[in-house]
């Protein structure tokens, strides 16, 4: 069964990397959006294979909605021609250099350190018996209460900001 699982992992990983690559190589921003959805979908599959179905479902729900909005933006606002792409060519070069450096760094770190799992308070048996969703819920509302609430205030600020921006024109 292990071989099957590995094979499955490699197939999904291949799709994830390919679609991630296509996100930046597609000429049309809409196609980039579709491939971005594919990448996130593959990540959701990884969550499922890691026994975290709740994360997988949330991943699809949140990102599917977010990318939808992105695509709408592209349709409604941007009608990018090739002139814009040429104008921002120096930015593209900068991004290539930066991400190349980052890749180099990651490779060096990976070569130096040894990767060992660090056992936390949550074990695989606990996930099996208590339930993955319950564990996340408990952690969010007890240990991580403050960060969770701070994130919600951040979202509230964003909503108020959006309303102010939308109302200004009227």
């Amino acid at each position: 069964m292990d071989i099957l699982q590995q094979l499955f992992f490699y197939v999904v990983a291949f799709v994830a990397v390919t679609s991630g690559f296509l996100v930046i190589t597609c000429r049309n921003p809409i196609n980039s959006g579709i491939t971005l959805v594919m990448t996130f979908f593959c990540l959701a599959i990884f969550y499922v294979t890691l026994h975290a179905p709740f994360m997988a479902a949330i991943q699809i729900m949140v990102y599917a909605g977010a990318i939808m909005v992105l695509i709408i933006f592209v349709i409604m606002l941007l009608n990018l021609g090739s002139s814009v792409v040429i104008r921002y060519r120096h930015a593209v070069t900068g991004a290539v250099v930066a991400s190349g450096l980052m890749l180099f760094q990651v490779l060096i770190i990976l070569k130096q350190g040894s990767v060992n799992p660090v056992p936390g308070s949550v074990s695989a048996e606990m996930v099996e018996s208590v339930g993955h969703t319950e564990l996340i819920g408990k952690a969010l509302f007890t240990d991580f209460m403050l960060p969770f609430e701070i994130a919600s205030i951040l979202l509230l600020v964003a909503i108020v900001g959006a309303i102010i921006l939308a109302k200004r024109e009227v």
Partner: protein
Amino acid sequence: MPEMLSLSNDPILFIAVMLAKILAVFVVLLLIVAYATYAERKIIGHMQTRLGPTMTGPLGLLQPIADGLKLFFKEDIIPAQASKVAFILAPMMILVPAFITVAVVPFGGDVVIGGYTVPLQIADLDVGILFILAMEGLGVYGIVLAGWASNNKYSLLGGIRSAAQVISYELAAGLSIVAVFMLAETLSLRGIVEAQSGSMFNWFVFSQPLAFCVFFITSVAEINRVPFDLPEAETELVSGFCTEYSSMKYALFFMAEYANMVVVAAVISTLFLGGPAGPFPGVINLLLKIFFFMFVLIWMRATFPRVRYDQLMFMGWKVFLPLALLNIVITGAVIVL
């Protein structure tokens, strides 16, 4: 109860049973989809004092097959200025999520096969409801892409409307079923069916009437059925997002619409009406409930005029969303007390 059949204790039987379940559910779903088109024409026909299809086969029963054959042999047209990849991908992106959703719907209790317990459900996910919501969210991509890729102003308008509609109503639909899983204390559809077992009055439709109404109406809006069919409003947008589609691609959109109806009917039956519970063997109960909701959806199409766009947005954000939130608060208070 004997041990649960899984991949580790009998792989060959497990795979065989899985394939059999998938095949059975898929065939039944396709049959319902095909005959839902017939039922819709027949029922609406009689409601408007017409007869509906009568010529193909006895009582017109072969009409869906004739329709399918006709669409299959039509010329497949792709507009010259269309974005080809998205244009071809869109019908599949709308049909596949609709079909996958059925995988988490339980269609009966447990049966014993070859000494192992087999649940009558393709996949019992821990997060069944969230999976359904996620797939509904993915379904809108098909419509928006179809609208954008066709390079047609009517299609684009239909696609954009659909995106706005689904994003607005997804929230209310999701919030309305929060109350259901507060009562069931699980996200798995199997657990929810178990929580409603026993007498008929354990069904969540009795303890959660508000959630039931909100979820039903928002679901109708999410699958773009009358009176919320603004994305394809034929009186103003020709045929909306599928204007430029022909042949089998159009048939895929058509199938997706009816598949979505079946899915919504099945999900509502599972969440609020006890799923396969009832006087008959499990599968028949569930099918009867599905048929009932399909009939209501068709009935609504014959009855209601289309809502205006501003009415749609008003209802979504200012009526259903607050109602769903209120329902959560009330349910929480009742549970705590």
